[in-house]
């Protein structure tokens, strides 16, 4: 184990250096980053919120329900991808991460940096959905006093996504990453209460149980409670607790996985 025995300003500096590198690289690839982040939720929003609405297949209020869900989805998913995919490649092929593993920083903190960086991309990916929502949808009626709580939920949702990405990135071999993404990511996409309110699933109990296991549910539901309280939603404290638990559980498993991959 890499017990940090020389904690202090040195490690904080190294942590910021490693985080700075990741942010700088994202900055260089900003165009491709932003298009990756926006494409899927934009089309979801456009088709479900606008097209189906105009055709009369969904009720006008549906977009109100969908937008917070898409914010939640992006917070978690962009974070998962930003953490998992580079790690799979780094650990298996390029070994580019080695220089950071040799920085004067405990290996655990390198893992934490991966979570924080993934989360910051997730948070960003989620926030850019707000202007997109305002542009695509005819009207967005948010209770603005709920914004601080919504921000907290998004931060926790992003961190939880970064931690889940660390789990995937350290457990999955590159040959299986495609299969895993299909088998894990797709179900997560549709069980996160993104496109429907969780509490109204009472006649589909088995599906509700599955949705309850998906952390995105708690971001979506929490956001609805904060921003669009007219839509039925889970209580805020339930969402908060579930997300903290998710961060801790994924974080612990992910950091263990990272240590196993980083040290022989």
């Amino acid at each position, binding site marked *: 184990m*890499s*017990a*940090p*025995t*020389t*904690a202090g300003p*040195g*490690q904080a*500096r*190294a942590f910021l*250096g*490693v985080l*700075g*590198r990741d942010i*700088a*690289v994202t900055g*260089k690839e900003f165009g491709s980053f932003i298009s990756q982040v926006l494409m899927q939720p934009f089309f979801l929003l456009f088709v479900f919120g606008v097209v189906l609405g105009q055709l009369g297949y969904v009720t006008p209020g549906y977009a109100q329900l969908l937008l917070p869900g898409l914010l939640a989805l992006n917070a978690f998913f962009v974070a998962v991808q930003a953490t998992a995919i580079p790690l799979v490649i780094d650990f298996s092929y*390029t*070994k*580019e991460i*080695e*220089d*950071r*593993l*040799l*920085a*004067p*920083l*405990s*290996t655990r903190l390198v893992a934490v940096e991966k979570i924080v960086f993934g989360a910051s991309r997730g948070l960003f990916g989620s926030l850019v959905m707000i202007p997109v929502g305002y542009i695509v949808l005819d009207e967005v009626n948010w209770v603005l006093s709920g914004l601080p709580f919504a921000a907290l939920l998004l931060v926790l949702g992003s961190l939880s996504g970064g931690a889940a990405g660390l789990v995937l990135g350290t457990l999955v071999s590159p040959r299986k990453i495609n299969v895993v993404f299909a088998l894990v990511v797709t179900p997560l996409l549709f069980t996160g209460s993104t496109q429907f309110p969780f509490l109204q699933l009472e006649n589909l109990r088995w599906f509700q149980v599955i949705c309850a296991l998906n952390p995105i549910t708690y971001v979506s539901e929490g956001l609805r409670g904060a921003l669009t309280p007219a839509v039925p939603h889970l209580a805020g404290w339930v969402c908060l607790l579930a997300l903290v638990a998710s961060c801790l559980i994924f974080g612990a498993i992910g950091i263990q996985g990272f240590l196993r991959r*980083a*040290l*022989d």
Partner: protein
Amino acid sequence: MTQTTTLPSTAGADEAVPAVEVTDLVKRYGRSTTNAVDGLSFAVRRGEVFGLLGPNGAGKTTTVGVLTTRVRKTSGLATVAGIDVAADPVGARAVLGVVPQRPNLDRSLDARGNLIWHAAYHGVPRARRRALADELLERMGLLEKATTNPDELSGGQAQRLIIARGLMHAPQVLFLDEPSTGLDPQARLFVHDRVVELAASGVTVVLTTHDMDEAAKLADRVGIVDHGKLLALDSPSGLVAGLPGEATIDLVLSGADVAAVQGRIKEVRGVAGVEDRSDDTSSLLRVRADGEAGAALAPVLGAVADAGATVSQVELGEPTLEDVFIDLTGRGLR
């Protein structure tokens, strides 16, 4: 630009403490039934170039892995600049630099970016990073490649960039794992010259190699390792001097059983030993002679003729580290 910026930060370092010390080091990987490193002990003095010589799989890279905090030891003790690498990996990482066997440059950054961000990880003040990077790029003959992506560098250029990166935080000890494997002769020579320079500037260098010429040329002292154990440790000339015989006679033979010829030659006066170095294409014997090779040559050739063989080629020389290795293990290095 001054050389002093990349001198090791020996301020406050106790000169009596070895740069590297390994005591009874054992490493056994997860499912393995044997020890990759099996009770290794050695110490490297400050400012020394120390070579670990052995065939592939001898445990050299694992030893360097433990010393550079990437491999967890099973037992024993390993210190770098007096810091126990297992107890304080973070402290150890600050004083050591690594040039790994496989290139691992950051391909999201250009050559200069690799150096500058490495300096950032190690807390080099922002204002000094760029000047330091350019100084090292120049020393490594890479200044015109500063904005090149690592993917576009040749093997030799990439290796030099990795060495430059390892030096950005002015480490006290630089570990080079097989530094010239896969390089062409010219690139190899350039890397060798940089190692000599580093040693001259006071950096302790630990290098692993399976190339006896490289070890003999660069290292002040060489530890010969096989199966995770240290077989011998001395200066290259000391190791060679320890061999029986002072000269070698290589004979390429045809027309007879090599073992029979070997037996005949062994009985010649002045012959200290005979090794069979035959391969698939030719029969080769190396004779080690006491005293001058010329004196033993005539009786040795006579013995070959007595055995009914013909000599197609004769070469006189001096024993090398490879002879030392064969003497210790009965096998060649490769």
